[in-house]
């Protein structure tokens, strides 16, 4: 699918709603003068301008469901020594404006009319573009079977927990499995430890069912998971990946 010919002009976006997801993660909803929706998995570029003219640009994955032209949401994790994420998660308030262009990206995307099972594997804030896919799936007429395997360091760091549990409770073919890598609370029902082959065998949609797979997270996480999936017999072309490096400013 091509989106060639679309000119990604900068638009002045207005923050209209802000909510905390975890102690370090915040979701911001924007309205834009010319926004015509997006595909689940796409991202936007943000441009911030200081009074002295200094500008910073960053890319953020879109968190909200596709085809929702009224507003667009991103979810931002605060990077302690970052420049843009501390501003977005600390200083920005509803009513503030900044420049946005997009949506951008045509490969790491999912459309709800794909009936192949949807397998999502997230590390940390890598869940953001995958959440857009699950929200988009939730609005589709015949939701494709889907599974999310989601690795977080600690329970308090799980983004979208309440909403994910609500989506699972609909019993419409979605399963969500959490794993924690840095703690193991006594009342914890999910998995613990890093995602490995056993965990993928137990919770991931098997290769025989021909799932499309989206893996998003830190570089090492994505490398490891993709290697496991290949060993479990998934074809390379079915595995779409998005990595964010040690600079951490991506999501």
């Amino acid at each position: 699918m091509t989106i060639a010919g679309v000119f990604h002009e900068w638009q002045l976006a207005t923050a209209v709603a802000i909510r905390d997801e975890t102690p370090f993660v915040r979701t911001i909803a924007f309205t834009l003068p010319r926004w015509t929706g997006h595909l689940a998995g796409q991202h936007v570029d943000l441009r911030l301008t200081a009074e002295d003219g200094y500008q910073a640009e960053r890319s953020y994955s879109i968190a909200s469901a596709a085809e929702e032209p009224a507003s667009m949401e991103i979810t931002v994790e605060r990077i302690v020594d970052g420049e843009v994420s501390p501003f977005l998660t600390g200083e920005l308030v509803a009513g503030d404006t900044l420049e946005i262009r997009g949506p951008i990206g045509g490969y790491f995307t999912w459309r709800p009319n794909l009936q192949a099972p949807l397998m999502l594997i997230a590390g940390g804030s890598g869940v953001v573009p995958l959440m857009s896919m699950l929200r988009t799936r939730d609005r589709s007429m015949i939701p494709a079977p889907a599974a999310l395997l989601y690795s977080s360091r600690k329970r308090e760091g799980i983004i979208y927990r309440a909403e994910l549990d609500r989506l699972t409770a609909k019993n419409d073919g979605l399963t969500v499995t959490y794993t924690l890598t840095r703690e193991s609370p006594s009342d914890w029902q999910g998995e613990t430890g890093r995602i490995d082959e056993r965990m993928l065998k137990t919770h991931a949609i098997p290769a025989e069912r021909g799932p499309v797979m989206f893996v998003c997270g830190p570089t090492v996480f994505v490398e490891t998971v993709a290697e496991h999936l290949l060993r479990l017999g998934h074809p390379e072309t079915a595995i779409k990946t998005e990595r964010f490096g040690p600079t951490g400013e991506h999501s």
Partner: protein
Amino acid sequence: MPVTRGFSRRPGAPEIPGERLPPGQFATPEFPVLTAGPTQHTPLEQWSLSFQHEGRIISSWKWAQFTTLPQTERTTDIHCVTKWSKFDTHWRGVTFDDLMKAAELESPVTPYVIAHCDGGYTTNLPIADLRDGKAMVVTHFEDKPIAPTHGGPARLLVPHLYFWKSAKWVRRLEFIPANTPGFWESMGYHLRGDPWREQRYTGDP
């Protein structure tokens, strides 16, 4: 340009866009990895690099042959379309000019090339962006064989364009008559990708 209330440059931010850092970029000492799918692992005994034209392989080098071609070292800045730039990266490999010589091609067969890579990735480049020392096929980064995650055993290096043009795991350079979009170029990214003109996406000037 519209000022963003409350935003200012982080104190001690090492580099601001200017002579060395293209617009919209930030400098990082890290080397992030961005790839659309799994990392490729091609054994050297199965590796070759080829020139192709109209379906036909017109030159081909196996790994052992490739390593005997004239080696060039280059230190350069690189710029990724996802906004990071990395200064003073050091590479070794074979220039496109030397590949042309080794293939006994006096002039390019066509005005454009599309690079084909293990894993199916492609990217298009005008010959003008490859010649006169502008581009190389590199095998070493900081004096070590390039790691598979960063495109080893061999990747393109076209550092004056956004780094998606410096295709990882390159195996075949196909001479083509028209500037046909490659993988990212057919998904909304710019056909050429000059970071100094901020040609990130389709339609950017």
